[in-house]
């Protein structure tokens, strides 16, 4: 069972576990991403996820397939929330089964890292001071000038050539 899903409704790891359970598995690793009450020094009240659904599902499933190719895992699933979320809500769940724990941990880590970097999902944060902002590289968004070279402390995957 390998499937990437988007959901407007609350996520529960138990749902994924029911689909992943197999007698062959000796390890089940899950990762949950939660809505945190602060980001970049600002107090977060709630947030909103928006997706380009057709491509997000396609890219998410491609990532799960890559995880199955790279690691000795039996199943890999990922579910991501859309819509309005409050602090403490589950934003994303990754669930992996494998015969042994090393592969399960590695695959889980691979999937969440790739999902964050590649799947077309966007997040708008609403702050306690009443402001709101789309979260991306603030320096990219702020500078409107071409050819302005600024140092990134993180990579943007496959940006335009």
């Amino acid at each position, binding site marked *: 069972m390998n499937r990437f899903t988007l959901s407007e409704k609350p996520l529960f790891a138990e749902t994924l576990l029911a689909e992943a359970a197999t007698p062959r598995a000796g390890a089940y690793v899950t990762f949950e991403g939660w809505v945190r009450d602060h980001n970049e020094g600002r107090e977060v009240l709630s947030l909103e996820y928006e997706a380009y659904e057709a*491509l997000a599902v396609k890219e998410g499933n491609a990532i799960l397939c890559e995880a199955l190719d790279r690691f000795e895992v039996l199943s890999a699933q990922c579910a991501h929330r859309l819509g309005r979320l409050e602090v403490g809500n589950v934003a994303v769940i990754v669930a992996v089964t494998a015969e042994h724990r090393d592969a399960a941990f590695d695959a889980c880590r691979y999937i969440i890292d790739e999902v964050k970097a590649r*799947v077309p999902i966007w997040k708008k944060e609403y702050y306690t001071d009443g402001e709101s902002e789309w979260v991306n590289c603030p320096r990219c968004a702020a500078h*409107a000038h071409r050819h302005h070279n600024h140092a990134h402390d993180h990579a943007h995957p496959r*940006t335009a050539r």
Partner: protein
Amino acid sequence: MTRNVRVQYFGILREQRGCGEESRETGAASPLDLYRELAGEHGFSLDPENLRVAVNDEFRDWDSILAEGDKVVFIPPVAGG
């Protein structure tokens, strides 16, 4: 030569454009030409170097050739997870 394309917007681009989707007749041959044309009209803040582009629900190169009826989506830096 012009072609009709459909453009979908998400996230910060949707807000800057003020709508989620539009149909457009354009002389732009590539997604990069089309983005420059639209950015000039609507004052998009993001440079193409910080975006990716999809055509008909597949990632595409910026210099690929647009065809009649293509659906084009410009993809701001993603923030899932």
